């Protein structure tokens, strides 16, 4: 009775190869084109609107029907998936480093990808703010209030979540400004993470923890996520607190050349990203609570987006340096979190 084993393996292999033949994507003829946009967590609503508007534009312009496939998750995890073969035509992630990794490790797009589109390939920006419970019962006004005794802070893990890295850097910027040194900054950030009861893997998971499960006193969040929570999900249940200093988050977008070329979708993919920079695209961006680059659109939404002091990733020497120093294995975050919680 040894025969069935090879037989089963053979059946498995045949089945596998047969199935893989059915699964393809991309452009099938002139009539339609399909784009896979691999994105990070909080952009679900944004790209739902963008995709619908772009599909209409593209149809009017070329007569071609464009349809979209979306994949959402933590930015780092999504980047890893694309490197491992998830064949995204475009990526719209939380930070440049996650796209750098694709260029570096898998050569899916050129290393200079970020200079191919205006504004560092970031058609919209956001910043980090605080979301607190209605009436702000713990009296949270600025960063120092987050480390007061009894305050619980919700933020996802910077190991897996792009948004969480921005949170970390915003906190660091405050610590450095207040204490005047990197040592003071690290002390403040370590103190802050000792107030975090649970590290979710993505920004959306952290929001759900705070909004739905009711955990924590303050959510450190993307401004867009905080506005969405305040205005749409839990209307009247939350307040937004804008801190004295924060970071300018520039979530970049890029065509994944190798995949788009293989699918024959380069033109549609490129136009799709360009659409984000048009006045129509920028208006959709602003309506979804991202800060538009277009000054005219920004002026129309000035009430939604208050001005505040912001540092940029360049102040940390760019994503490559920041990633290595703070978030890589054995970096500052490991020292803080491993050291503070376990040992």
């Amino acid at each position: 009775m040894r025969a069935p084993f090879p037989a089963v393996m053979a059946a498995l292999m045949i089945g596998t190869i047969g199935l893989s033949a059915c699964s393809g994507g991309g452009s099938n003829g002139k009539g339609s084109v399909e784009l896979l946009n691999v994105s990070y967590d909080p952009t679900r609503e944004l790209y739902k609107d963008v995709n619908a508007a772009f599909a209409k534009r593209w149809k009017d312009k070329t007569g071609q029907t464009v349809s979209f496939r979306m994949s959402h998750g933590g930015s780092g995890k999504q980047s890893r998936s694309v490197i491992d073969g998830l064949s995204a035509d475009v990526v719209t992630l939380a930070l440049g480093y996650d796209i750098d990794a694709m260029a570096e490790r898998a050569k899916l797009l050129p290393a200079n990808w970020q200079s191919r589109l205006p504004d560092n390939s970031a058609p919209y920006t956001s910043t980090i703010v605080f979301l607190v419970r209605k009436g702000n019962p713990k009296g949270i006004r600025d960063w120092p209030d987050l480390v007061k005794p009894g305050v619980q802070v919700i933020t996802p893990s910077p190991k897996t979540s792009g948004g969480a890295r921005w949170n970390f850097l915003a906190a660091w910027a405050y610590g450095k400004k207040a204490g005047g040194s990197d040592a003071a900054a690290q002390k403040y950030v370590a103190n802050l993470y000792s107030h975090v009861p649970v590290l979710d893997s993505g920004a959306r998971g952290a929001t759900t923890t705070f909004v739905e499960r009711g955990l924590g006193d303050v959510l450190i969040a993307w401004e867009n996520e905080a506005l969405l929570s305040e205005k749409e999900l839990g209307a009247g249940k939350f307040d937004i607190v804008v801190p004295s200093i924060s970071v300018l988050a520039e979530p970049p977008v890029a065509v994944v050349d190798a995949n788009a070329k293989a699918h024959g979708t380069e033109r549609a993919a490129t136009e799709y990203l360009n659409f984000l920079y048009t006045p129509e695209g920028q208006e959709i961006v602003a309506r979804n609570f991202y800060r538009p680059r277009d000054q005219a659109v920004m002026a129309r939404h000035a009430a939604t987006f208050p001005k505040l002091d912001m540092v940029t990733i360049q102040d940390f020497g760019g994503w490559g340096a920041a990633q290595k120093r703070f978030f890589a294995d054995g970096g500052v975050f490991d020292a803080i979190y491993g050291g503070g919680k376990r040992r």
Partner: protein
Amino acid sequence: MSGSHPTTVESPWARRALIGVGFLFLALFLFLPLVMVFAGALAKGWQVFFDALVDPDALAAIRLTLLVAGISVPVNAVFGVAAAWAIAKFDFRGKSLLISLIDLPFSVSPVVSGLVFVLLFGAQGWLGPWLTEHGVRIIFAVPGIVLATVFVTFPFVARELIPLMAEQGRDDEEAARSLAATGWQTFWHVTLPNIRWGLLYGVLLCNARAMGEFGAVSVVSGHIRGLTNTMPLHVEILYNEYDFVGAFAVASLLASLALVTLGVKTVLEWRFGIHRAGAAH
């Protein structure tokens, strides 16, 4: 026949308390969550419930889940019977190693199982470059999901059959062989009828897990909506989009499939008066 039976020396009070604790536990940990799932699904009425189920992405997830179970359960049934047969009826070197290997998917975390396939078939994996060159997609496509599910669920049938077949011994088969039956005849007319209930039970368990598997599938899926999301993954996505009714609607369908499985098993056992003696772990 006087005096109390040795196994029921507890006072009626203690017995009632024990039974009560058992029922309370079941109600709290099984019944209540199940009710909550269905209550959540119907929180906004039947219309919203049905709309959530006929959403194209939900339908795609349902189809994919059924497809994956439809492939992995038969494969594992064949594998399970073959492995149990070999282990229970023959002596060979490496037998205990084979038994341990069959248990491997139970002892390994599903996430690790998924990552193994990424390491093997991912674009940066061992076979990745070859697969890319030949245009074969396994990870982040249906084949990867099937492979991960097969891997995670393959012990169910074998584990169910090994003790059963070991207990039944080889006498029937040896009798058949002495009457000049061929190997296949022995298998179809002697072995299979003896194990059919154990086999059925294993297949049902395997099916339940194949449809419900989250961890391993999550790693190899790529989470493309309408394409590589199975029902459990779709539930998570809907939940993360604050579409709680939708999430619970799909979850309740998943729970219903499990209940149907359970119902089929109970009906069959009752119909044929089977008690699964020997098949238990």
